[in-house]
């Protein structure tokens, strides 16, 4: 993780540093942006839980000075759903990787979004499986290389924003680790949002994705992110077409949905009250 100022140190567990993330990895920047967002929102750390799945992003919970769960591969949203229902006052931030959320955990991802349960997902998308050493992810763009697509991927890549929108997430945004200002801004907004919120953050993996695809080191990859994204608020239909045809393509970034729809825990509390129960009181 990059150096953090004194103001953010109280959010982090100094005893857990340094992180497992490789030099040049974008994940530390995302974690720092989460800390910045918590600071801006003046969150009480006792009321925050940070959860993660398995993979590089899944280590996020270890670095925060909150209650935390490092769960199983792909299934963190099911743990988070139980935790949130049992303790609705908790603010729950869920760190997921692209393989975590869109391959092994895709089923959990769409159903958490469908329920519109008040969780904030930060989707660290580095287009590859980093922890296991550079295998193809559902987000690896067509023709890009990984250790399991050594001749270039022959599959179309998944678009997380598209999926989240289709599944019913009520706050959906995308940005990149290049954008230091936008990351904490979107994360703060997502945390405040009363419903299922997803912020996808394109993150660089110079160790595997960069090396296997000759994209250079971290600064080169950040420039790549800058050059291959466009600010696009609103519909992503057109842009998604571009993605699929155009390799890593020109991905739209921005906020794609802000919508208020009945939230699951509130719905459940209303059901409980209607049945004479005192859930959530």
């Amino acid at each position, binding site marked *: 993780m990059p150096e953090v100022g004194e103001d953010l140190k109280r959010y982090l567990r100094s005893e*857990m540093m340094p992180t497992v993330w490789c030099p040049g990895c974008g994940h530390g920047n995302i974690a720092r942006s989460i800390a910045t967002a918590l600071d801006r929102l003046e969150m*009480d*750390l*006792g*009321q925050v*839980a940070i959860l993660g799945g398995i993979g590089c992003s899944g280590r996020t*919970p*270890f670095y925060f*000075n*909150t*209650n*935390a*769960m*490092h*769960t*199983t591969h792909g*299934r963190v949203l*099911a*743990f*988070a*759903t*139980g*935790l*949130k*229902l*049992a*303790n609705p006052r*908790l603010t729950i931030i869920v760190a997921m990787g692209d393989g975590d959320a869109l391959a092994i955990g895709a*089923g*959990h991802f769409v*159903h958490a979004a469908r329920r519109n349960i008040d969780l904030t997902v930060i989707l660290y998308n580095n287009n590859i499986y980093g922890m296991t050493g550079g295998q193809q992810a559902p987000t690896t763009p067509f023709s890009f290389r990984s250790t399991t697509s050594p001749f270039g991927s022959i599959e179309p890549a998944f678009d997380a924003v598209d999926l989240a929108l289709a599944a019913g997430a009520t706050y959906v945004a995308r940005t990149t680790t290049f954008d230091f200002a936008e990351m904490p801004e979107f994360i703060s907004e997502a945390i405040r949002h009363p419903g299922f919120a997803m912020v996808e953050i394109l993150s660089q993996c110079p160790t595997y994705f960069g090396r296997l695809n000759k994209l250079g080191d971290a600064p080169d990859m950040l420039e790549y992110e800058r050059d291959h994204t466009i600010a696009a608020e609103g519909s992503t239909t057109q842009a998604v077409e571009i993605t699929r045809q155009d390799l890593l393509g020109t991905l739209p970034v921005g906020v794609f949905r802000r919508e208020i729809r009945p939230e699951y825990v509130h719905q*459940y509390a209303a*059901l*409980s009250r*209607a*049945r*004479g*129960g*005192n*859930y959530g*009181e």
Partner: protein
Amino acid sequence: MRLVQGNEAVVWGALAGGCNFYAGYPITPATEIMEYMARLLPGRGGVFIQMEDELAALAAVIGAAWGGMRGMTATSGPGFSLMQEHIGYAAMSQTPCVVVDSQRVGPSTGQPTMPAQGDVMQARWGAHGDRPALVMTASSVKDVYDTTRLGFEWAYAYRVPVIILLDAVLSHMRENIELPAVAPSPEISQPTGGMSPPFGPYPFVPFSAATRTIVSGLAHDESGATRGSGIGAASERILQGALRQIEKDASRIARCRTDRLEDAEWAIVSYGITARAARSAIDLLRRDGVRVGLLELHTLWPFPEHIVREVARKVRGMLMPELNLGQLVLPLRSAVEGICPVSALGRADGELFTPEAIAAAMTEEIQQIEVGGRVSHHA
């Protein structure tokens, strides 16, 4: 006195044990458990949620435990196979929870509506790695109630996932039983301080403003730290600690029921629904003058070695009928090795053993032993 179905008894037993969270996924023959929970929990201030699959169901239960609710799920074979990942996680993270598995014939989809006892080994060893296990079974609707209630007590006492094995017949069977009055959810006092380490031989403390617990399926020490030298040893120490505590309390945990063993020369060792046929088989054999008794095991894991050995010393031979092709007979044989011979009687076709079939197998074993041999039966 009320006519109660096995699956309904799970629900009342769970509520009596303080259960206030249920997450599940529909599957025959366990579905009624979640249907009852869906009707009852909202009005009692508890939580019911239908998840997208069985992996998610147990994950939600584990999440809820750390959120301060007492949770369970219920399933059958295929779902139980899926749950193994999170049974392992619950064991590793010392998260109390209860999993009911109403066994049906497998493998795979098998015979969804027909009874089996084929998950006995999976309940013990299904998750990868070594872990403490506490697995109970039941043979009557009243037992189902008591066992489920006790399951919650032990899940919290030992911080393990407690597994309760039923079967398709017991789940759908109705018997008239005396159900204790439906009490409102008992106030379960849960420690709230962050004073003792979060893992190891300490009480389970859910997340609170005072805690900063990191729960992980990675090997960790008592503080939850996952890095540094000695983490492997620490993890083994924690898991073995739970295992040893369970073994130390074996006399309390190892529940069983005996029937006419006092003067027995022969013993049928059985469990679950099969034990009821065995009890009738003993009537038949006693009518023919055979001095045979029944040892019915309620706790399957840890396997109650001390109990079966004590019985083995008094009899000339044992028979274990079970609705699988030879599972619990393996630890039984190993426990009584050199003390008395054990015959196995197995079937996995979806039918129960009749009392006559068990009596015939016992008679055959007696004849074999009396002419000096050992024998193994398979129906």
